[in-house]
């Protein structure tokens, strides 16, 4: 039985795939979904509540997490898949873009975990899964802001795993390589082919692959896994 689950950033391609996968596998589970820019066109789902939430607004994050904690009796999961690219060479990144990438990719996760910390500790059975990127381990040129902010997210989640472990809460990362949808929408076929050729499996992951990994880490079989990163990259990091 899936705990009530809060998906932060549910309007992204990966976010949509995550909540549709969770809904399909756990029809009875209570879902809480947040989005920011595209919140106006979200679908109605049974047993699900949508919140408009900008993750850089810590007061709003606290409000949303507080409501989820209250409705779930402090036993709930969090999936953090809010994220943004800010790809430019280091010499061209504006400080404001650098800070915006950190604000969304890691500060937002910090605000969510901080707001959820005590309720999760009280409830004792929650899970946290954050979506990071292989760029946090092997950045490409132009990915400084994205890679550095995702690397910070990795350490945030590892630290949370250490701190919240004593309360029975697990914290893990799902680490996609290039994903064929979402942030790569609009990429040329040549670019996608180049990326495919860089992976031993010669194929890019899909949002559904990422969602499956998230679902696994929220499930009963992953109850003893914490502080880990599940890499879904077609073998890219191994090559």
């Amino acid at each position, binding site marked *: 039985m899936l705990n009530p689950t809060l998906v932060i950033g549910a309007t992204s391609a990966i976010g949509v795939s995550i909540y549709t996968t969770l809904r399909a596998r756990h029809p009875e589970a209570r879902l809480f979904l947040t989005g920011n820019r595209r919140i106006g066109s979200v679908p109605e789902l049974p047993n699900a509540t949508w919140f408009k939430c900008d993750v850089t607004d810590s007061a709003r994050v606290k409000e949303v997490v507080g409501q989820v904690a209250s409705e779930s009796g402090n036993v709930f999961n969090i999936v953090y898949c809010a994220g943004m690219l800010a790809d430019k060479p280091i010499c061209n990144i504006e400080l404001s873009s650098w800070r915006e990438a950190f604000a969304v990719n890691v500060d937002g996760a910090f605000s969510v975990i901080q707001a959820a910390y*005590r309720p999760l*500790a*009280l409830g004792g059975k929650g899970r946290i899964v954050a979506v990071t990127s292989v760029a946090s381990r092997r950045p490409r040129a132009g990915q400084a802001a994205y890679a550095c902010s995702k690397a910070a997210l990795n350490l945030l989640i590892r630290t949370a795993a250490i*701190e919240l472990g*004593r*309360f029975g809460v697990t914290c893990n990362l799902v680490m996609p390589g290039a994903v064929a949808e979402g942030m790569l929408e609009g990429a040329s076929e040549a670019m996608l082919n180049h990326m495919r050729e860089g992976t031993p499996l010669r194929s890019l992951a899909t949002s559904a692959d990422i969602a499956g990994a998230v679902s696994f880490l929220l499930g009963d079989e992953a109850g003893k896994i914490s502080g880990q990163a599940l890499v879904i990259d077609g073998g890219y990091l191994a090559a």
Partner: protein
Amino acid sequence: MDFNMIRELVEVGLDRKLDDFNLEQNFYTDLGLDSMGAIALFVELQRRTGIQISEQEAPDIQTGRQLEAIVGGKLLSNG
């Protein structure tokens, strides 16, 4: 809240049993409680009694006697 519950809460915070405990010992300087242990102690208190210690109150609770007093006060004010 009786002596045994206070000792159990401190043991949860320290993650070890205490052979020798009294209400005047300082959790931090005498018993070695750290900031994570303090959170565990207060979470356990809330689990057992429903009483929440705020971040502002926590630094002033360093002995069993002080914990007893603040919990007693909250129980009275909660009716």
